[in-house]
């Protein structure tokens, strides 16, 4: 039961790890150097890596002289050599590992600052300065959690279109939603949700927050804000303690602006008058691990793409909501919830029949799934969503959702995609077989053949 949830969580983490890693890679060297000069950033990046990556870095952390690359390969058992080599390659791309003439060492700045982060030396102001004034009695950890969830949900509500009873969020939030194509400006109606928006809704909260933050980074780039400053500040925020109050005095103008904008999302609570802010669980849970992803070191073997999976670092910082959906083998659905948002999301792909004060019933029908698919939601996302929100009682079964239902949903999806069209060229009427052979071999080498028939001498 736990493994399926972990596997699905791991997959969604893969996706956004992919993007944050890509973003870091795309930064030029001087920028990276500035990012690394901040201990909080180094620590945050370190936590984002996979177990093997962490192991490699820790082993080299207190070595001052470079190491032979060959020796590093020896650290792994023969059958896991490939994994280790892949990890080393990833670290090199992130510029954490520096290679020269067969010797590798950690990037000096990174090494220095990570040591500082771990031992508490150096500029510990980068971890946030705690506010030393009296506490506001109103703001407790519980209050903050509720505040954050409310804010986040109101944004999701706005996306789903339930905005009749919910005040629309601020300009900056709407701007980000539009820029990331989660919502599109449709003719005269204002913002309407898009295909990727639907997919966003079905993801778990941590991936959602990551997606938003990445968009924010891109927006910052476009507005000529110093990307490194923004990035550093973000990394600083993710390492703060939820519920603890921090002073805003030491922050620059840009950082204060960021605070304001992030506040709209419910990631922080800003008490402007008293000049302090409280980070909420939404932002601090980003690197401290969502419910224990599998600690195994399996990685995908796709050559150059980065997949860093977050391994469980022990405790679970995010209070994950208990599942609330029960799915029967006859495709009937029962959801123990009264939250309009969750009901709206279910409405996207299920046909809801009855609604009670604490409980909603419905079914997955062909029509409802087909309409969901035509909006761009894939069968896998629906299945992942149902699995992650499944009622604890369902977890007794293995696999969590009845196979009949998952297969049926996939079949319905395939029904819509019966044709696989690919734009191509068709070659026929070759004069000689040798001519055909040559073209065929060339096309094979560059890997563009879709279909070939050697008897009739035709190629696509």
């Amino acid at each position, binding site marked *: 039961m736990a493994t399926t949830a972990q596997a699905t969580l791991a997959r969604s983490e893969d996706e956004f790890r992919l993007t944050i890693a890509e973003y870091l890679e795309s930064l030029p060297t001087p920028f990276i150097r500035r990012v690394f000069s901040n201990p909080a950033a180094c620590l945050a990046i370190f936590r984002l890596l996979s177990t093997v990556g962490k192991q490699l870095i820790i082993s080299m952390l207190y070595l001052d002289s470079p190491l032979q690359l060959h020796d590093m390969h020896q650290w792994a058992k023969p059958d896991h050599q490939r994994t280790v080599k892949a990890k080393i390659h990833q670290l090199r791309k992130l510029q954490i590992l520096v290679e020269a003439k067969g010797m590798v060492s950690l990037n000096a700045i990174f090494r220095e600052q990570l040591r500082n982060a771990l031992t508490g030396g150096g500029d510990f102001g980068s971890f946030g300065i705690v506010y030393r004034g009296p506490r506001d009695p109103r703001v407790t950890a519980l209050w903050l959690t509720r505040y954050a969830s409310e804010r986040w949900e109101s944004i999701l509500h706005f996306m789903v279109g339930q905005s009749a009873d919910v005040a629309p969020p601020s300009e900056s939030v709407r701007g980000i939603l539009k820029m990331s194509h989660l919502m599109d400006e449709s003719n005269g109606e204002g913002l309407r949700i898009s295909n990727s928006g639907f997919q966003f809704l079905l993801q778990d909260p941590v991936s959602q927050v990551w997606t938003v933050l990445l968009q924010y980074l891109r927006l910052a780039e476009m507005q000529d804000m110093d990307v490194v400053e923004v990035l550093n500040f973000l990394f600083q925020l993710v390492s703060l303690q939820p519920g603890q109050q921090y002073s805003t005095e030491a922050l620059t103008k840009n950082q204060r602006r960021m605070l304001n904008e992030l506040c709209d999302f419910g990631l922080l609570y800003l008490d402007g008058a008293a000049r302090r802010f409280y980070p909420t669980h939404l932002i601090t849970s980003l690197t401290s691990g969502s419910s224990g992803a599998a600690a195994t070191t399996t990685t995908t073997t796709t050559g150059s793409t980065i997949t860093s999976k977050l391994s469980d670092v022990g405790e679970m910082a995010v209070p994950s909501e208990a599942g609330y959906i029960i799915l029967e083998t006859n495709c009937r659905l029962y959801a123990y919830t009264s939250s309009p948002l969750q009901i709206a999301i279910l409405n996207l792909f299920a046909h809801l*029949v009855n609604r009670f004060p604490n409980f909603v019933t419905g*079914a997955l029908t*062909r029509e409802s799934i087909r309409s969901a698919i035509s909006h761009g939601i894939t069968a896998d996302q629906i299945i992942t969503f149902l699995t992650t929100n499944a009622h604890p009682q369902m977890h007794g079964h293995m696999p969590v959702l009845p196979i009949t239902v998952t297969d049926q949903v996939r079949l319905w999806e395939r*029904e*819509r995609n*019966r*044709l*696989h*069209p*690919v*734009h*191509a*060229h*068709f*070659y*026929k*009427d*070759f*004069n000689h077989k040798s*001519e055909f052979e040559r*073209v065929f071999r060339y096309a094979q080498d560059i890997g563009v053949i*879709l*279909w070939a*028939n050697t008897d009739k001498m*035709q190629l*696509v």
Partner: protein
Amino acid sequence: MVKAVKGVFVECDPATREVLLKLNEKDKFIIEDLDNTHLFINSTHLDRVKWALDELMNENYYKKEQPK
């Protein structure tokens, strides 16, 4: 002389292929019938073909009574 024709390469299952061949009789869009599971069609008709196929599939589906 070698002829190169631009179009859309379609992969489908044999049943769908038969349906497409039948649709072809009304408006010609198949450039070449490649084999049991592949066809090469004219790109301009692609959307219409998809839509017509979908319609046909829908007609043949039995809708069960909604449970009250």
